[in-house]
């Protein structure tokens, strides 16, 4: 019947696929990179090539390890001499305030004494408490709070966004108006009220409260992503194959929205650090006996003129954590964004060109 149609030449078509990567000069490098890898692998590799994000990740990991190992966490003892809030005993240690005014004993490598940490590297407060131990406990609190906020905000945001975007119609209207309502309320005020209800003095309830108000941006992004994903043909294909709504949402659409979610969650977390700090500073968040970086700053506010190190150190770590998390978020965004194409150096381009030439000459030419 179809005598004038050429027979299927499978080898020819398979080699055509390889040829596609050879033919295009511009995209050749990317395509070469992509052969044989899942999208997750491609994203991972691109992330690991992002120097800023990797540096930030190393710094953040160092801060987290330092914070959790030094003063101990839960029942695990730490290696640091002082516990948070502990004061030196003149009978045992021979002093109450080590340096004059309790100034930091840490010495920098470029100073006369060379590098050394001394008994109180971050100094002591007016009653002799070790600042290093307090700051480390503050870091722990901030990290715990941020991780919980991330989890809560992700769960709520993804759920609401996914339902809105997938089902549209009335469900979408109701959920999105609710989201708008949460967005219009000032976060600090809402956080303060929720914190007061849940018991903001402890990190976990405070984190739950903050998580319950910071999901809005994520849910809007997820909704938008789902609205566009549900029109894609592979969703239709899944439906024809008999997939249920749940299966389509979780197995087909969510994996494709992962990029948006991860990036947005990371950036939400970095702003949540600052929100926790502000709440604690204003007195609506963590209070004694718990320690947080924001609380430390507010506690020693009055000592600014006399003992500035009392909030230099917590301030430094707040900035460090927020900055590194932001950097990681930027790196993730670049890694997930297909349009984000770094310009390869001239040397790399030349190397890629040589490689393509070599492969072209080593393979028999296929007629176009």
């Amino acid at each position: 019947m179809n005598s004038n149609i050429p027979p299927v030449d499978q080898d020819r078509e398979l080699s055509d696929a390889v040829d596609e990567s050879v033919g295009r000069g511009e995209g050749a490098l990317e395509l070469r990179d992509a052969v044989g890898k899942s999208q997750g692998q491609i994203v991972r590799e691109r992330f690991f090539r992002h120097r800023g994000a990797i540096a930030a990740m190393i710094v953040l990991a160092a801060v987290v390890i330092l914070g959790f190992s030094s003063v101990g966490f839960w029942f695990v003892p730490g290696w640091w001499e002082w516990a948070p809030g502990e004061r030196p005993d003149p009978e045992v240690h021979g002093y109450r305030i080590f340096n004059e005014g309790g100034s930091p004993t840490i010495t920098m490598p470029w100073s006369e004494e060379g590098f050394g940490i001394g008994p109180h590297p971050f100094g002591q407060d007016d009653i002799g408490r070790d600042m290093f131990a307090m700051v480390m406990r503050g870091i722990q609190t901030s990290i715990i709070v941020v991780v919980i906020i991330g989890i809560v905000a992700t769960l709520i945001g993804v759920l609401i966004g996914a339902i809105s975007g997938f089902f549209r119609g009335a469900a979408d209207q109701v959920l999105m108006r609710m989201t708008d309502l949460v967005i219009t309320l000032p976060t600090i005020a809402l956080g303060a009220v929720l914190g007061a209800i849940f018991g903001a003095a402890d990190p976990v309830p405070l984190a739950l409260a903050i998580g319950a108000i910071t999901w809005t941006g994520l849910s809007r992004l997820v909704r938008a992503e789902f609205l566009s994903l549900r029109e894609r043909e592979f969703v239709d294909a899944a439906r024809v194959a008999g997939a249920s709504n749940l299966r389509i949402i979780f197995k087909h659409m969510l994996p494709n929205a992962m990029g948006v979610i991860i990036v947005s969650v990371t950036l939400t977390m970095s702003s949540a650090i600052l929100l926790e700090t502000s709440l604690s500073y204003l007195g609506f968040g963590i209070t004694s006996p718990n320690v947080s970086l924001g609380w430390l700053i507010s506690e020693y506010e009055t000592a600014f003129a006399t003992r500035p190190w009392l909030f230099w150190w917590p301030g430094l770590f707040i900035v460090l954590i927020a900055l590194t998390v932001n950097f990681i978020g930027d790196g993730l965004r670049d890694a997930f964004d297909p349009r984000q194409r770094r310009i390869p150096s001239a040397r790399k381009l030349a190397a890629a060109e040589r490689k393509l030439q070599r492969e072209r000459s080593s393979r028999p030419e296929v007629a176009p």
Partner: protein
Amino acid sequence: MTALLQVEDLVKTFGSGRQLMGTGELTTAVDHVSFSVEAGRTLGLVGESGSGKSTTARIVARLLDADSGSVRLHGQELLTMRGRALAPIRRQVQMVFQDPFASLNPRWKVGSLVAEGLKIHSRLDRTQRRDRVVELLEMCGLPAVAATRYPHEFSGGQRQRIGIARALAVEPEVLILDEPVSALDVSIQAQILTLLTQLQQDLHLTYLFIAHDLAIVERFCDRIAVLRNGQIVEEGVPRELYADPQHEYTKTLLGAIPIPDPRRPGPHYQRR
């Protein structure tokens, strides 16, 4: 011979924009369309963009709900089925999509893509599924290793083979081909059409072939229905339809087929 797939008086309208004020205009995408396909045969649904051919295909595939009309498979009404009752129908009517790049989930390996229908509909275990996937891929002219690759590693033609393998996984009776070759190069188009013809013979499949290119439809289909503005304006056997088009629109469509060599004698639509 009774028809396997019977479509009668299908109507589908789309509202334009919001209907809040009740003034939104309605567009009739499918306007009382009726046709039937016999088992093992191919019906071509031809028309320009917006003629309602894809909408008809999507209704038959139960991706869209029709406003009225009926679609019967083996005399069994499909349009009123919902939920669990729909599952066995889904199995019998499968679809190959137009865009081989958009119709494969980029996050899934080819093996899982092809096996999805099996996972949902059959009780095969893991190894049985894997064997079946390899069998399907080879049936469609792909190597077995393709199962462990991701869609983005394949060319357009290969992806369309994956799409066909996926549609065949659950052993359907009816295959809706929604412009399966319109996104492909001409040489690849021929290969895919040959494959589809071969599969139809081997598996006794019934095709509903959607196309806008009359040149392709002529060789591939047993009957052709020409759609315009949601209505079937002409229906018939390709040879007669091409030799003696009755409707103005069909003539226009035939006239739109490019002629490679005007000096060459023979029917003006014949290519290659």
